């Protein structure tokens, strides 16, 4: 009754293969960075996991907006699934960044705008999950979740801006360089290939996880319905 759809199976396969390729590129194809050495290889998955998290939170805010205007349960499930994926990848982003920062900055943690903003984002979406857990009524839970996903998402850029005005040492690899940055580098073409391939791989990973999470939610709903049916019979 609940067989895995064919498209999802294909997606699983494509994602696994491209993940394997991405690992190969990161470890063997991309050149060793001259100053930082092998630890720089974290960069590819570090940025890619931030990318997934950002996709997830943006997706959740949009899905929240759609839910509020259309009121179909599906969009609430998309928002929840997106945020759960986002929370996990924000965590990966912070931890991998920490592992990189130890040799590059000689500390696990500094109060840099990106680091602090990532942490605040994580806390916002923990709060989102706690808010949902505190509400039993399905409709109300979805509405409050949507409102908080939007409010939280809007506050993030202002947070980033206000902490950025204090000082930053985080390297800016893409876009304008930061003269105060420590541990920055210029990407060679091989690095660029690896980097963009990692981004694509992680985007696929996001889509796959989101789909699985949505399926899980729907199966859970069905189980719940069956349970009620048996109990009432």
């Amino acid at each position, binding site marked *: 009754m609940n067989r895995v759809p064919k498209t999802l199976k294909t997606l699983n396969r494509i994602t696994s293969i491209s993940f394997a390729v991405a690992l190969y590129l990161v470890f063997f194809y991309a050149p060793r960075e001259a100053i930082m050495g092998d630890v720089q290889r974290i960069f590819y998955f570090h940025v890619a996991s931030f990318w997934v998290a950002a996709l997830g939170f943006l997706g959740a805010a949009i899905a929240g907006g759609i839910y*509020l205007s259309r009121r179909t349960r599906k969009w609430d499930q998309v928002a929840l699934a997106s945020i759960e994926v986002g929370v996990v990848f924000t965590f990966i982003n912070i931890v991998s960044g920490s592992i990189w920062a130890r040799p590059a900055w000689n500390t696990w943690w500094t109060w840099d705008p990106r680091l602090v903003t990532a942490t*605040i984002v994580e*806390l*916002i979406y*923990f*709060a989102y999950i*706690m*808010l949902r*857990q*505190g*509400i*039993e009524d399905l409709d*109300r839970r979805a*509405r*409050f979740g*949507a*409102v*908080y996903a*939007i*409010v*939280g998402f*809007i*506050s993030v850029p*202002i*947070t980033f*801006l*206000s*902490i950025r*005005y204090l000082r930053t040492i985080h390297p800016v690899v893409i876009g304008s360089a930061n003269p105060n940055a420590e541990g920055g580098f210029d990407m060679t073409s091989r690095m660029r290939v690896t980097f963009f391939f990692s981004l694509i791989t992680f985007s696929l990973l996001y889509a796959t996880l989101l789909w699985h999470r949505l399926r899980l939610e729907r199966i859970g709903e069905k189980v719940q319905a069956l349970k009620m049916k048996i109990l009432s019979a």
Partner: protein
Amino acid sequence: MGQAPVTPSRRHAAKAYLRALGAVLWKDVAAELRSRELVGAMLIFGFLVILIFNFALSLDARTRGTVTAGVLWVTFAFSGTLGLNRSMAIEKERGCFDGLLLAPVDRSAIYFGKVLGNLLFMLIVELLVIPLYSILYNINLFIPELFLVILLGSIGYTVVGTLLSSMAVQARTRDLLLPILLFPVVLPLLIAAVNASKGILQGFERSEIMFWLNILIVYDIIFTAVGFMAFDYVVEE
């Protein structure tokens, strides 16, 4: 001449809106005047927070200069959550909120009425904490610019706080939930308010202070709009 004509019915609608808003505000003020629970509790709590800071940070003359702004805003934020929680809890307790929602007025009038009430109580507490702090630490806090920062900070805080507390109060975990929902969202406001206050107290350059004031203003505008639009979805049943 070039103005859009204001039809009587439209003027009437605006008047009715303001009347509804004023009624909600007046209800909160009247309840507070009779019970005198909220402001007193917020004030004593705020005083306790300052007292704890006094010993935790050993606020001697040297450290005081740099941490005063931070201590003040932590005090305001903590006593603010106390007020927000209480103001929504009393609505929920005996079903007053459902009564309010039954009234044939625009929901946003109820929201802004509650916001103004919360803002008023917060400002009263702040206006009492400031002289207290000035006397205790022999530091002059009566600077007009500082009051502007406090006003802007409190507006943003209550605008977001009222929206989120009206959600938190309907959850199982209630008052436990509000600070967890509120603080990460309100953080940029607090950063801006602390830095603007610090700049004013230590006589920083005007451009430096203006940056933080701009953030406060932008935050207030954005979240007033968000609250105005989102409140409808929070209270509809």
